[in-house]
């Protein structure tokens, strides 16, 4: 299957935009990726080995959090996208904003 690497992480993945791996599930695919490119690991996982909260992993068009997370099965023609979240805003200007922060 193919794993799409977002622009900021390509420098840790041999400058590649996508990488092909052999895997039966999402966890195996990510393990295969980080085994080849160990520098990616700390960008994707916390010290406790959990996927970082702002790192979204999508199998085709579905968030793996709403599938079976890392045990979600994958097929040869699937593609996995690593998408760090994009958010922000003027925010934090009043108490109601802070409640949302």
């Amino acid at each position, binding site marked *: 299957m193919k794993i799409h690497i977002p*622009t900021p992480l390509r420098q840790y993945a041999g400058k590649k935009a996508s990488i092909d791996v052999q895997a039966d599930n999402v966890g195996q695919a990510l393990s295969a990726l980080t085994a080849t490119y160990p520098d990616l690991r700390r960008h994707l996982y916390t010290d406790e080995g959990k996927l970082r909260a*702002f790192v979204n992993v999508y199998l085709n068009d579905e*968030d793996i959090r709403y599938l079976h997370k890392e045990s979600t099965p994958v097929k040869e023609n699937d593609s996995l996208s690593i998408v760090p979240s*994009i958010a*922000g*805003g003027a*925010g*934090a200007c009043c108490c109601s*904003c802070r409640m949302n922060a």
Partner: protein
Amino acid sequence: MLRIDQTCYEQLRRHGEETYPHECCGVLLGRVEDEDQRLVTSIARAGNTRTDSPQNRYNIDPRELITIQRQARELGLDIVGFYHSHPDHPARWSSTDLAEAHWLGCSYVITRVEKGQARETNAFLLLGGEEAEKQFQDEPLEVVAQIAETKTPA
């Protein structure tokens, strides 16, 4: 340095005027010429999913980003940054912007929209080798009449 095509520049500013008093957001597409030069040749509008607080927060649905990324890939373009607006707030990054910025090495463009009119537009480069040390740096923004479609030969 962020060099942005004139049409794209006008489009992203207009987007902020259209969504006022809510924040707009979108993706900057183009290419990285070398370490410190990003060229924007196309932009993609995105919806703001923060319907709970759209006047001062934005969030792009990752699924929408994947679609944008796929279309960009077919055109040979990369994501080089993002843009959003600050309705009635300065065109400077906020603490929320920094806390929620994770695309290291990408440009974040902010436009102040005052009473529905786009005012200044500034660019900030997200620097740092990892999350813990990330910071925004003011990035020179140059609006270019037209950017050549192809990469200049090395």
